[in-house]
């Protein structure tokens, strides 16, 4: 009997097989009343047909449906049914599910709180690959996907220069997951988190030290490097976490360039921004340049000081070393030839 069913199943295309399900689930008003509320059980089959799972039948995932029509409510399915190492259906297995288990989302879920699972971000029937423009995890769509729950953050993000970049078609601009990561999202107080003070610089550096991306957007490339040479950067490097990192001054979701009056790094707002840590900061903090290495000509007077000292130090030390060498040379010669 089993082999017969298998044979029949094999001869049919997924669409043939799914037709039987869609007899009911294909109707738009199909549904049941559960806990006094109407629950739609309609499935938009076009979604499934254009998803990564188009080759599969409904019962591949809903594998507890043996008889159609089914009389009992099928169990909730889980992606790990197939996406586990050693699965036979050929479902791609990456480290993502494992990473997800570490995340704050999974932790909240384990504690019984409301938190997203795979399908909350990837979609249910309409799972599409990330490079598909209709995918929920397509770069441009990620803010709306995360924003389903994180509405405040989404609103804040959407005024940022990063979102402006995305809208201009510069898809290298950062969206949620570029900073937060995707599966292993961790809270900032976790030392492994990309948002932990000791990791923030590295997180921003991924793009802000990337020549190609920065060229495209016209942002100076050496800013992160210059930051690392600053007292803030060095203090952070050696574990002084109260030292300012990128987000301390630039904020995070609503990052804006210094030319924007809403930006905390706009010259008019700098006194207040620096004042968060340095109580006496005045308008004076705007009189100077930030994130520029002394060896860059744009550094202005600092560049000239640096250049002066470079030449001065070289000349002085060279002179002293020559004096020493001549002294040694003279002593050696006199000793050797016994001259007085």
């Amino acid at each position, binding site marked *: 009997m089993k082999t017969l069913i298998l044979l029949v199943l094999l001869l049919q295309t997924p669409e043939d097989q799914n037709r039987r399900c869609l007899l009911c689930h294909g109707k738009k008003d199909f549904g049941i009343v559960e806990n006094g509320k109407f629950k739609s059980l309609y499935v938009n089959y076009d979604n499934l047909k254009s998803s990564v799972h188009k080759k599969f039948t409904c019962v591949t995932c809903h594998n507890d449906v043996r008889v159609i029509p089914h009389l009992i409510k099928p169990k909730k399915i889980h992606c790990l049914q197939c996406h586990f190492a050693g699965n036979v259906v050929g479902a791609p297995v990456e480290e993502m599910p494992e990473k997800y288990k570490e995340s704050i989302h999974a932790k909240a879920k384990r504690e019984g709180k409301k938190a997203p699972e795979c399908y909350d971000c990837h979609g249910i029937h309409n799972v599409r690959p990330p490079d598909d423009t209709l995918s929920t995890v397509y770069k441009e769509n990620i803010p709306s996907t995360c924003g389903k729950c994180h509405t405040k953050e989404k609103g804040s993000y959407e005024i940022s220069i990063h979102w402006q970049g995305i809208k201009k078609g510069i898809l290298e601009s950062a969206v949620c997951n570029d900073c937060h990561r995707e599966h292993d999202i961790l809270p900032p107080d976790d030392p492994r988190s990309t948002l932990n003070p000791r990791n923030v610089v590295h997180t921003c550096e991924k793009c802000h030290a990337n020549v190609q991306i920065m060229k495209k957007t016209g942002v100076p490339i050496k800013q992160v490097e210059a930051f690392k040479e600053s*007292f803030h950067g*060095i*203090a952070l*490097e*050696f*574990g*002084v976490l109260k030292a300012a990192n990128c987000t301390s001054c630039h904020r995070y979701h609503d990052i804006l360039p210094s030319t924007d009056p809403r930006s905390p790094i706009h010259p008019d707002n700098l006194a207040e921004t*620096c004042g968060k840590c*340095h*109580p*006496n*900061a*005045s308008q*004076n*903090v*705007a*009189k*100077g*340049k*930030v994130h520029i290495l*002394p060896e860059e000509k744009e*550094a*202005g*007077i*600092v560049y000239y*000081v*640096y250049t002066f*000292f*470079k030449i*001065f*130090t070289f000349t*002085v*030390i060279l002179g*002293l*070393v020559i*004096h*020493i060498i*001549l*002294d*040694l*040379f*003279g*002593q050696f*010669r*006199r000793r050797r030839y016994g*001259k*007085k």
Partner: protein
Amino acid sequence: MGKNDFEEKIIEEIENEEEIKFDEKLREKIKKEIKEKYKKEIKKIKREIEKKRKKKEKEEEEYFIRFSLNIRLQHFILAVGVLILIITGLPIKFHEAMWAKIILKIMGGIQVSRILHRVGASLLFIVSVWHMLYIIFTREGRREFIELLPRPKDIMDFIQNIKYFLGLVNEKPKFGRFSYIEKFDYWAVYWGMVIMLGSGTILWFHNFFLGVLPKFILDIAKEVHSDEAMLATLAIVIWHWYNAHFNPEVFPFNPTIFTGKIPKERMLKEHPLEYEKIMKEKSKK
């Protein structure tokens, strides 16, 4: 007991031990040899005692006091301060290097090293105020300061010294109390102190200065502090340590600045004019 008895006793002892008898001739010979042996030893010991006595005399007699306790203390505090500053400062400048991370770790992290750096800075500050008071208000200080002032002779000395190094002349320049090399060291400290204490003060009290000075002044202070630190460190390690300690003439260590004493021999070689002056003053008395 006469001397002969002593030798006799030794021979008897040997005879008893070996159970044989020496004849008279052999006895005489052995006696003679023993005598000669211990006479030689006694002479040697006497010579050694004499040598030690002479050396001690020489030490006591032929040393000059080159630096007063006041100068020695100033130098000591300055040296300790500078060493602390170099050890705690350079790892910040070269924070990416492995050795810098190791040194910082040994010190107990950047939060400890910055406190130590300020301790060093305070020593430097104290010694500069002290030195200013010393050269203004003490007779000794004023005299030393006048000796340290550059004069045309220093240039002549420098030229002659270079010629001497090259073997063009056979006579070393005759230095007075301070050679041009020592004067260079002294005046270089002024340059370094003004820059390092000036920029360091801005960096130390940055929270105050942030409100008073435009940011670019603080940027300059940081740059200057870092650059001058490098110059000073190189000058001290290469130049000052070579001339004062590692020079083959005094290698490996010249204790004069710590003990204040300089032997006559080195005095004659390194500061002949001062030697002459001291001798003249002594003979006048």
